[in-house]
Each structure stands twice: as structure tokens, then as C-alpha cells.
């Protein structure tokens, strides 16, 4: 495996800029997820790494080699497509064999690599079936085996799980992650599903409108989003626009006073719903009275919109545990909510 260096990559389709100023270093054996809403440029970037799309500007290195102008079939990347893209006229074993034949691997070596690859994804017993005789999850496993059999320098996956149903999605995701870690694969995983990205990646790049918004570990991005888009896109957050009136004292436009950690230029603050307690918690320096505007029962938790006195809305999650089960939470009922100043995230704008 190899590291990947992407430097100031740009792609323009006619006048439309699909990707701009994209720079990223992927370490050897690291899994980076590209996450963002549809149309933000994830696929375009991945396909430039694979060589299907020629960049307008910038460069891509795989290992020490500049591959920016190398044709697809000489890049030695292993790609997994959303709709599996298996060869319909070939059996499972022939599908896996294809890439090996193209790389002039023959005889015993080829047979043993086919066997290893199929074994890896637990598809050995299906080797003589045709793709149409397999379920979606099985087809995607074969596609993974086919891509890995050629021992690619980089493993590329474009929304590989989005055609699978929810349960299978988690199963195949965990399989991909454990393969990736055991084999030390340098991997780019494109998805629009944040839970998927958080669960699978070492680092993730959040993209919007053809630009990277933030790159970091799942925990860094979730706990310290660098801007409003990232905070809003990843998980839930209640936002308050306003100003610092004194150090550590924020006043929202609707007049709510909130204690925050000290910051420089602050135009907006946010708080995650799971960081808010019901009742006046002893460690919380922000305590508010409010009225429940709506409460949605989501099984493991209750999702509450709380209207504060000035009209601001606070979104909080009450876990459905033994202590909260008896609390009456109905629209219109009063509720006290509290949170720590250190849990507030500050944004410049």
C-alpha cells in the first residue's frame, strides 16, 4: 500500500466548478471518508484519483509517483462501485480472475490469489455462480474481492453500501473496516451517510459545494466543528446567533444570556442536544426555563424542542432510561434545561 497526496486539485465542467482547492494527505493504511451532501464533488474527486476524470488543475501522487496524467489501467487502484458493476457474463471466480489476467498473473499464483480473495469475503462457496444469482450484499462482497485481488495501491469505494438494506449495510461496513485494517489498505470511502462515515473512518473530509469544509478524526469533527456548515451537517445542534457582551458572556439576538468558554470573535454559538440535561444539573452553569413545543418519541430517546423565554429554541435529547421514564413530557408542559458553558461550541459567524 501507499500514501496518497492530493495537491490543490480542481475540476471544472464547462463553467461549473465541481471541485476547488482540494488538498489532502492520506497516510499509508489510513481510511479517509469523504462526506457531504449530494452534488458536493465526492464522486468527482474519487474518480480523479482513479483516473476516470482528468483534473483541471492540481496533482495526485500515489506513493512517490505522480499519477495525474496516468491512464486508468496503469494506476493500480481498486475501485468498488455503488451498483456493484460485476461482469454479468462471468462467474464469481472469473470476475475476480479478470484483474489478475490483466496484470499477467497466471497459473498457480492466479488460482491461489482468487481463492484468497474469495475466502476473505466469505464467498468461496459461490465461486461458480453468476452475479445475477447473488443477492446485493453478496455481489458487493465479490466486487470487493475483485478489487482487492489485484493488490491495489489504493482502495476506492463510492457509496458502496447505499444499495443495501439497513442491517446488511452495517454488516458489510464492518467487514470492509476489518479487511481494511487487517490488510493495512490505504482507503478512500465516499458516502453521504454521516453515521457510516463516523463509524468507519480514521479521518473524514466534510465537503460542501466543491470545497472541503474540515478534515479531521470523527471525534474532532463532531466535538469541534470549525464552522456552521459542519456543525449543522454532522449530528444535531441548536444554534444561537448573537454577540459576546463580555468575556464568556454571550447574548443571543432574542435576548437569551448564555455563559460560554472565552473566545475571540463570536457571532454564533451551538450546543449538541445530548449535552443538555433536564433539570438544574449541579455542574451546569447555564440553566433555562422553557416550554416543550414538541416531543418526538424515538425509542431510545425523546427528541424535544424547547422554547425559551425570549423565543429561542433549544433542541435536547432525553434518554429513555429508568429515571426519565416517569417524567411527563408533553407539548406545553414546562421544563428546566441546563448545560455547561464548556459544552458550547463557538463560531465566528
Amino acid at each position: 500500500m501507499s500514501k496518497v497526496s492530493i495537491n490543490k486539485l480542481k475540476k471544472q465542467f464547462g463553467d461549473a466548478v465541481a471541485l476547488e482547492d482540494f488538498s489532502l494527505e492520506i497516510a499509508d493504511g489510513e481510511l479517509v471518508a469523504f462526506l457531504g451532501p449530494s452534488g458536493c464533488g465526492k464522486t468527482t474527486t474519487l474518480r480523479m484519483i482513479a483516473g476516470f476524470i482528468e483534473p483541471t488543475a492540481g496533482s495526485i501522487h500515489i506513493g512517490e509517483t505522480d499519477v495525474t496524467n496516468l491512464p486508468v489501467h496503469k494506476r493500480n487502484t481498486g475501485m468498488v462501485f455503488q451498483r456493484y458493476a460485476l461482469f454479468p457474463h462471468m462467474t464469481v471466480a472469473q470476475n475476480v480472475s479478470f484483474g489478475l489476467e490483466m496484470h499477467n498473473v497466471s497459473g498457480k499464483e492466479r488460482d491461489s490469489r482468487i481463492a484468497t480473495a474469495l475466502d476473505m469475503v466469505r464467498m468461496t462457496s459461490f465461486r461458480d455462480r453468476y452475479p445475477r444469482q447473488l443477492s446485493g450484499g453478496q455481489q458487493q462482497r465479490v466486487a470487493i474481492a475483485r478489487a482487492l485481488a489485484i493488490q491495489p495501491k489504493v482502495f476506492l469505494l463510492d457509496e458502496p453500501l447505499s444499495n443495501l438494506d439497513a442491517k446488511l449495510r452495517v454488516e458489510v461496513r464492518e467487514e470492509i473496516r476489518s479487511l481494511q485494517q487487517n490488510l493495512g489498505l490505504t482507503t478512500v470511502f465516499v458516502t453521504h451517510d454521516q453515521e457510516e462515515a463516523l463509524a468507519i473512518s480514521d479521518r473524514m473530509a466534510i465537503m460542501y459545494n466543491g470545497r472541503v469544509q474540515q478534515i479531521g478524526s470523527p471525534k474532532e469533527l463532531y466535538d469541534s466543528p470549525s464552522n456552521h456548515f459542519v456543525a449543522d451537517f454532522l449530528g444535531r445542534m441548536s444554534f444561537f446567533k448573537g454577540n459576546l457582551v463580555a468575556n464568556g458572556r454571550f447574548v443571543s439576538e432574542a435576548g437569551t444570556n448564555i455563559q460560554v468558554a472565552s473566545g475571540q470573535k463570536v457571532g454564533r454559538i451551538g450546543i449538541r442536544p445530548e449535552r443538555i440535561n433536564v433539570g438544574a444539573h449541579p455542574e451546569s452553569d447555564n440553566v433555562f426555563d422553557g416550554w416543550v413545543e414538541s416531543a418526538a418519541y424515538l425509542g431510545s430517546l425523546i427528541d424535544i424542542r424547547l422554547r425559551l423565554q425570549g423565543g429561542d429554541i433549544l433542541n435536547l435529547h432525553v434518554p429513555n432510561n429508568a429515571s426519565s421514564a416517569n417524567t411527563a413530557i408533553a407539548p406545553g408542559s414546562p421544563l428546566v434545561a441546563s448545560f455547561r458553558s464548556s459544552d458550547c461550541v463557538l463560531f465566528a459567524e
Partner: protein
Amino acid sequence: MSSVAASNISAATAPKVRRRVRWSSLLHRVFVCMMYFFMLSPLIFVVWMSFFVDAIPHFPPSGYTLKWYESAWQNSSFMNGLVLSFQVAAVASITGVILGVAAALGIVRNGFLGSKFVNTLLLSPLLIPGIVAGIAIYLFYMRAENVLDTDIVGTFGGLVIAHVCLTIPWTVRLVSTGMAGLDPSIEEAARNLGASSWAAFRRVTLPMLRPSIVAASLFSFIVSFENLELSLALVGPGKTTLPIAIMQYLEFNLDPTIAAVSAVQILLLGIVMLVTDRFVKLSQVV
């Protein structure tokens, strides 16, 4: 609970629904049978007539015989026509399919400037009356003969080239439809696994297009084999295709030899279609 309620409802409404379904399906079947009869009746009558004993057919026939088949067999212009038609159709369909696949590939894949126009141009032989096209090609050949100083009209090559114009539209149509239905990421997967564009095409795309190509070959063969109008101006003395031989015979005779020749032709094309259908389900392609 809900499934019980649902089954009650369906039990109550079932008789009415079933009766309506039965009526409409009966009507549907009658209609389909009529369509089949309408389409097949000329064929049935031709085959039937080929066994009539009378030289001038009338109903009911005074008896049945195989002598018209013998007379067709002994007629050299029919036999030579059959051989020539077969050769022309074979060469024209193979050539047309190769050119047509290449054209379809260019049109669907590259979508170059003017590809729509090229597509229409390649399909246009389907729209121009054969007799007009035949005369146009004849005039063009005369010009070309003057310039190149070789014979074209009346040669095998001249006839084949004209028939290639007939076969290309079928291939372009069928293969570009087949190609548009392919998932482009399959060929991309092949490229990603180390195949050059040519290897990806040969090992992956071409096999996936096999049904379209088989169907295109079949239809190309048939349109060439049975073509009369285009060939009329282009055949040479002593070298006529089967449809022209039939027409020439009809000018002076009206006996069931023609019916016998036609019956053999129907049989041959029927066999070709059935054999093709064993390899590729035609109803799924066309």
C-alpha cells in the same frame, strides 16, 4: 386483525372482479388470435397453394401434388438466385454489423458534435423507398465507373455495398439501444482492474452486447435476403437474386412454382429465426 379485515373485503368483492377479469382476458385472447391469423394468413395460403395440382390455382383445388417443388428445383434461375441471395445477405450482414457496431459505439459513447445527425443519417435507409435508393445508387455507380474505370453495376461487390446500406440501420438501432442499457461502470470496472480500452471492450462490453449483435445479424440477413427494390437496378445479366428471379418468373407464369419457392424461403428464414432464438431470446432484445 388487519389481515382478517382485508381478506373479508377481498372475499366480498372477488366474484365481481373475477368475472370482469375473465371477460377481458377472453376478449384479449380473441383479439390476439385474430392478429395472428391476419399476419399469418398470407403465409398459410402460399404454403397451401404450393401443393395445388392445378396450374392456374382455384378453390377448392382439384388435387394435391409435389410437382411444383420439383419444377422449382429444376429451374436454374431460382437455384442460382437462391445461392446469390444467400451470399449477398451473408457478406452484407457481416459487413453491416461490424460497421454498425463501430458507429453505434461512437454515437452512444462519445456523443461527439453532430452525433445525432450521423445517427439519423445512418437510419435514413429505413425511410427512403427502396426503388428510389436503388436508382440513386445506380446513378452513383455509373458515375463512379466512369471515374474509376471499373465495373460496379452488375458486380457482386456493387450489390453487397448497396445491401450494406440496408443492414447498417438495423445494427445501429439495436446495438445502440443495447449499449444505452448497459451500466457504464461495468466497463469502468474493467479499466480500473488494468484493462486497456480495447481489452475492456473486447472482454467485457462486446460480450454484454452479444444479444443485440445476434439480433442485428439476423435482421440484417433477412432484409438483405428478401430485398427486391434496391437490387433491381444493380444486378447484372445472368446474376439475379431470388426475389428478382421470382418477379421475372411471375411476368410470364402464374403457376404454383412461385408458391413452392416462397414456401421454401419461408421455411429457411423460419429455421434461421428459430436457431437464433435458441441462443438469444429475440423478444427480449427487439
